[in-house]
């Protein structure tokens, strides 16, 4: 895939993030949504706010690289390193290429920037937790650990566009004690220093890697020393921040050297309402893992942002609009309508609801493929509308109108999900079985319906 638009000059040291016009006042002073552009060497320019798509084992679930290239337009892709660490000498470390090994190994479209962190998002809680030297990870063959030097060496080799260094995150308890929180901040700070020493400015320059510092999902008071260290000593090494809990954003305004950095939120939004809230708090890139989840549930996104703040008048004006439509409902069985009216995505221009409905009932893989194309497209359009509204100064009105007109949550998809693999999640006690047993013949002695 080589259709990189606007490739930037290869000057890795040039400023990568520019904040454009924002309203109501200068974004560097006050907490508010902001427009910007993120330019990484050799990649398509990213207009922000925008979203980052989430990969599994180096692919957007169900989409081959050529489909990603042709029919999607998300800003960047999140890739977890643990997806490549099941073997000590994974092939990605041996890939003979003059390009970036991560892009080359995964055949990922070269115009799309990659963002690498150690863990999948959301990640599976590791029973062992982290130690001072070892960070727990979960590979396709089970739990394992990685050290800062190993992580640093791997990243320097595979060369993602952006790396989020190791953070001591909540891998055991969701509500740790204060003592543990203090330790999380201390460890993350020392790991950050160790990482930046190993992957120093020269390495980053020649490998073309930018660093987004992790900001922990704990209160400001407990991690202020770490953040202060980033602000005072490391800001020159940083190209962005990776925010694990957006509630800390107001506190981050105190750190003048950090405010102009792009902020990627790893505080996973579940709905477009969450997305709008994060953007309102000044997030520039949102990790949108919910797209994959909703596509697997057989749901087609059906939301748009009214950029001028007027609720669209089509249909029943007073009715609450659904965020998504369950394509497995029999109501769509003969519908020749697109998944969403006026949608210009590949799925909606080429196919109709009846086909997606059929594919979901027949458990044909193409159904999830087509939903992924549509849902990623709708979210791209949503972000484009966010930027338009911000440019016009109508973002708050648009957000408010959206909140009134659209339902709070996605519908529960009733269709069958694709088969989940071990590394997708870890079953916990008394959790309902994710993979339902395969369908057997109804009559005793009747043959099993084979997949022919």
């Amino acid at each position, binding site marked *: 895939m080589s259709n990189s638009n606007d490739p930037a000059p290869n000057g890795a040291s040039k400023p990568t993030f520019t904040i454009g016009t924002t309203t109501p006042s200068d974004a560097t002073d006050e907490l508010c949504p902001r427009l910007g552009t993120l330019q990484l060497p050799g990649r398509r320019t990213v207009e922000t706010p925008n979203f980052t798509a989430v990969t599994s084992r180096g692919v957007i679930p169900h989409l081959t690289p050529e489909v990603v290239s042709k029919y999607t337009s998300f800003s960047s892709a999140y890739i977890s390193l643990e997806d490549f660490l099941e073997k000590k000498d994974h*092939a990605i470390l041996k890939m003979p290429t003059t390009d970036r090994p991560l892009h080359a190994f995964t055949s990922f479209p070269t115009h799309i920037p990659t963002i690498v962190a150690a863990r999948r998002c959301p990640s599976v809680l590791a029973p062992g937790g982290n130690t001072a030297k070892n960070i727990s990870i979960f590979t396709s063959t089970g739990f394992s650990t990685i050290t800062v030097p190993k992580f640093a060496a791997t990243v320097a080799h595979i060369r993602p566009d952006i790396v989020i260094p190791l953070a001591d995150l909540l891998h055991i308890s969701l509500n740790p004690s204060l003592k543990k929180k203090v330790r999380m901040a201390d460890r993350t700070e020392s790991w950050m220093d160790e990482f930046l020493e190993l992957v120093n400015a020269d390495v980053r320059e020649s490998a073309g890697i930018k660093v987004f510092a992790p900001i922990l999902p704990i209160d400001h008071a407990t991690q202020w020393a770490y953040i202060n260290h980033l602000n005072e000593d490391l800001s020159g090494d940083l190209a962005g921040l990776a925010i694990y809990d957006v509630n800390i954003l107001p506190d981050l305004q105190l750190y003048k050297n950090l405010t102009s950095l792009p902020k990627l939120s790893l505080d996973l939004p579940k709905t477009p309402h969450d997305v709008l809230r994060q953007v309102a708090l000044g997030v520039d890139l949102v990790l949108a893992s919910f797209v994959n989840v909703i596509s697997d549930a057989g749901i087609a996104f059906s939301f748009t942002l009214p950029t001028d703040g007027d609720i669209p008048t089509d249909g029943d004006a007073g009715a609450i609009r659904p965020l998504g439509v369950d394509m497995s409902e029999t109501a769509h069985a003969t519908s020749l309508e697109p998944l969403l009216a006026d949608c210009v995505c590949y799925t909606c221009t080429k196919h109709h609801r009846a086909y997606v409905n059929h594919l979901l*009932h027949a458990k044909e893989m193409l159904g999830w*493929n087509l939903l992924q194309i549509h849902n990623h497209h709708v979210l791209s359009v949503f972000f484009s509308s966010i930027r338009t509204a911000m440019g016009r100064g109508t973002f708050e009105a648009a957000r408010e109108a959206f909140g009134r007109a659209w339902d709070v949550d996605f519908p529960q998809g009733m269709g069958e999900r694709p088969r989940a693999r071990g590394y997708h999640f870890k079953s916990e006690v008394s959790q309902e079985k994710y993979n339902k047993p395969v369908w057997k013949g109804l009559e005793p002695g009747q043959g099993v319906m084979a997949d022919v």
Partner: protein
Amino acid sequence: MPVATQASLKGLTYEQLEQTSCRLCLNNTYHLGLKPGQETLDAVGGAHKLQGWDHNILTDSGGFQMVSLLELATITEEGVRFLSPHDGSPMLLTPEHSMSLQNSIGSDIMMQLDDVLVTTSPDAARMRLAMERSVRWLDRCIAAHKKPETQNLFCIIQGGLDLEMRKECCEEMVKRDTPGIAIGGLSGGEAKDDFCRVVETCTALLPDLKPRYVMGIGFPEDLVVSVALGADMFDCVWPTRTARFGAAVTRHGVLNMRNARFAHDFGPVETGCGCNCCLSVDKGGMAVTRAFVHHNSAKETVGAHLLTIHNVYYQLNLMRQIRESIIAQRFPDFIREFFGNLYEDTEDYPTWAVDALRRVNVDLIK
């Protein structure tokens, strides 16, 4: 013909299928009759409209799938009786109903309902009954076919491994003058020698200017030998099914990408292959390596999609090469090259292929 059982080819977009050079794919009447069902097919306007495919579709009659999938199916003169997999209620598939379903599907080529027995069945009387009944059912199909001007109905030659019975069947079927002719009942169990004898016996009796379709055939050697024996079209689920199990079909044989030896293999799935999976980026492909397929085989659906693209392309490209070599009057040379690529040594060549090809004056061991 790749087999898109339920109106989709294993996760490929229709553009991706089109790019493999596929212009004719198979849908299964039995499956489409269950899901989405005839009513929906009528409402939507047929299978082309359902799946957004504007090239050709061939449908089977539904009978073979029923007999092979449902142990409790029984066959009477009326049709195939079976219990609905939906609710267990008794159902009946008649030649008339099969035609009606296929008319609703709107396939470009439709198949008659036939009485299928495994060729290895020892019951000669039952085999004769099946063969004669298939002729009677063809007559009922022709009578019930509502759109002969837009949909081509193919007959199916039956008769097991009994060459005399096959000849008799050919004679009867040819009299009905259908636009194309299929050789049925040959999908697996029989010895390859017997398979070849049946194909060559039938093709010798069939008119030159009608397509001859050997049903359920897909291994590359079978395709090459069957063309040499006078057959024109084939279908098989094998290339796509085997892709989902991590197997790549190449000119040097089938390679299981899950094997550890491919974990660090950075070559394309097949060197020189023109599919979008193997082609380099500057030629518009994805430059996927064996190592990446290994990484995702049986883990992400994309692993299967990539091999499906490759395997379908391989099969269609093999048939294209066969056609080109026939036009260039060098088909025997092509066959020798083909077997030379597949086997290390001429001693490894399968005897059935050597023998069958010798009967049509192609000497493999020259």
